[in-house]
């Protein structure tokens, strides 16, 4: 149907720390199509941010290291690029919005300058033109009085406004891929609604593909076209959004969906997933969800299930759906 913008194959990003090796991203593969919104969900610490940083080439080295895998952006492997080439792509073709709008902006630079700075590195526009473009972007993300706002500093803006500034920054070059790493977690529901609304609108307008990272399944349900679910550094299920919510396969996904309170259904009996998310250091060899899984089998202890494709676009990593069970 449309072009694949980003393809990730068997990405492994590890952190070598004093306590041991943190397998933050362990064998993750997915792809994003042009104009599509791909949701990436999972609990805190399951490796969502590290995945996005790996794409951006911003994993702190050391302690981090991309051990294996390919990240093909428009067919070219980002992992094989030099710093210079990456710098060209970052901020231009691939852009990113971070979770924490309060600290993601330089506190001592003007908003306008920070936005225009992108163009300084990715265009030949004059200083004045860059500034005007920045102001234009501020208007576009729905901030009133953009001329005045461009002259102000981050601390003079609320969290929601800052997040919009970051979005403006990310979209000013009309990128092919926008990575939004938990763009609304730090915000209130009313503001979250504004921001997500904005991202969606812009996605339609610019046709950028969006990698939307969150731990909130509801956000995914409302915004994403397809979903990748991660657990403890591993990808456990991926499908298009309706399939996933309608017919979740992995026990973790299922449990998760049953455990979210839904507004307006206060009497829904919530399912409890017992136990804790495992520590990523020295993860046992088997399925990471084994100890919390209601359907765990013996082979889950020692044998890591492989990714199985159930139907077109729906894959899962679980022994329940292994070759023999199929």
């Amino acid at each position, binding site marked *: 149907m449309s072009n694949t913008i980003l393809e990730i194959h068997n990405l492994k990003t590890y952190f070598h720390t*004093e*306590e*041991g090796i943190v397998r933050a991203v362990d064998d993750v593969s997915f792809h994003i199509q042009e104009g599509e919104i791909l949701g990436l969900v999972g609990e805190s610490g399951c490796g969502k941010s590290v995945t996005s940083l790996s794409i951006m080439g911003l994993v702190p080295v050391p302690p981090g290291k991309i051990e294996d895998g390919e990240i093909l952006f428009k067919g070219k492997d980002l992992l094989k690029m030099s710093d210079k080439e990456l710098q060209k792509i970052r901020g231009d073709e691939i852009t990113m919005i971070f979770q924490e709008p309060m600290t993601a902006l330089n506190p001592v630079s003007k908003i306008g300058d920070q936005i225009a700075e992108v163009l300084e590195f990715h265009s030949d526009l004059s200083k004045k033109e860059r500034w005007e473009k920045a102001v234009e972007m501020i208007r576009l993300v729905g901030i009133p009085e953009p001329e005045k706002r461009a002259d102000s500093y981050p601390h003079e803006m609320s969290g929601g406004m800052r997040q919009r500034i970051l979005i403006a920054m990310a979209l000013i070059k009309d990128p092919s891929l926008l990575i939004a790493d938990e763009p609304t977690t730090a915000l209130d529901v009313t503001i979250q609604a504004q921001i997500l609304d904005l991202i969606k609108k812009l996605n339609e307008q610019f046709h950028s593909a969006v990698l939307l990272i969150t731990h909130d399944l509801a956000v995914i349900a409302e915004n994403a076209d397809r979903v990748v679910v991660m657990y403890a550094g591993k990808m456990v299920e991926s499908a298009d959004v309706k399939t996933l919510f309608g017919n979740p396969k992995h026990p973790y996904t299922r449990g998760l969906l049953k455990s979210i309170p839904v507004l307006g259904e206060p009497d829904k009996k919530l399912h409890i997933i*017992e*136990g*804790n998310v*495992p*520590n990523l*250091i*020295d993860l046992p060899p088997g399925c990471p969800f084994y*100890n*919390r899984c209601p359907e765990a089998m013996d082979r889950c202890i020692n044998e890591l299930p492989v990714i199985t494709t159930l139907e077109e676009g729906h894959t899962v990593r679980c022994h329940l759906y292994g070759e023999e069970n199929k």
Partner: protein
Amino acid sequence: MAQKIVSKYKEGKSPFVLSMIRLGRNKLAMAALFIVVFYIMLAAIGQFNIFHIKDIASNNDFDLRYMKPFQNIHHIFGTDNFGRDVFARAIMGTKISLFLGFLSGLLMIPIAIFFGSLSGYYSGWFDDIAMYIMSVIVAIPGMLIILSLIQVVGRSFFTIAFAFAITGWVGLARVIRGSFMQAKEFEYVLAAKNLGAGDARIIFKHILPNIFHFIIVRFVLNFVGVIKSEVFLAYIGLSIIGVPTWGTMLDDSKLELMSGNWQNLIAATIFMFLFLVSLNIFGDALRDALDPKLKNVV
């Protein structure tokens, strides 16, 4: 069912113990610590007159005046004007320097904790007064106070330690005050309050232990400052009388250099340098180990 969390550490290791384990893994810091401990032993040797070091250090032997360093095993660093063993004198100097650093730190810390914690915890008139005293002290050059005080009161060991403490506590008190102001809003402090804990319990059980690393690190770094300042005092002629110190050895060497007698200079410099380097390295490592926030800063 509670999941047993995966951790490399055995049960019940306190953060302090963990810090120490972290510190223990830092080889350079351990080497530095080893040297520091070695110096403490030297100081003990000086203090308790082990190996009759006191006598060796003050034993005049006029036939052996101005022996050059590194030529005689009995006098590794040579001998001074009196034929006294420079090495032994440097060891005696170790004792003075260490005691001076220790005593001034010991005097400084209670003052700093008293003013810092109370003014941080109870903002109000006490805070106003404490802040005022602190600003006055920083608004005068510390050395001027130290020199004047020693000049007026006399050059006893205690006076000098006291003079350092009088000017040194302010920095620590400010840090403590700042930490207290932050800490009193910490949730665990509020939680203790919520349980009905009194102020004393909160200050001593909850806040102080959590800023203790500042105090330790300050204490260590104060050493460095005091030892270097002692040299200055000796140079000005205000150091302790009657016992060898590194400062007085250096000051003595000022006169001897041109005659080619470098032994005092060499001995005192080596002793001091090694100690200060170790102390600096150890102090840094200690700070890094105790304050995990700094872990990220390479």
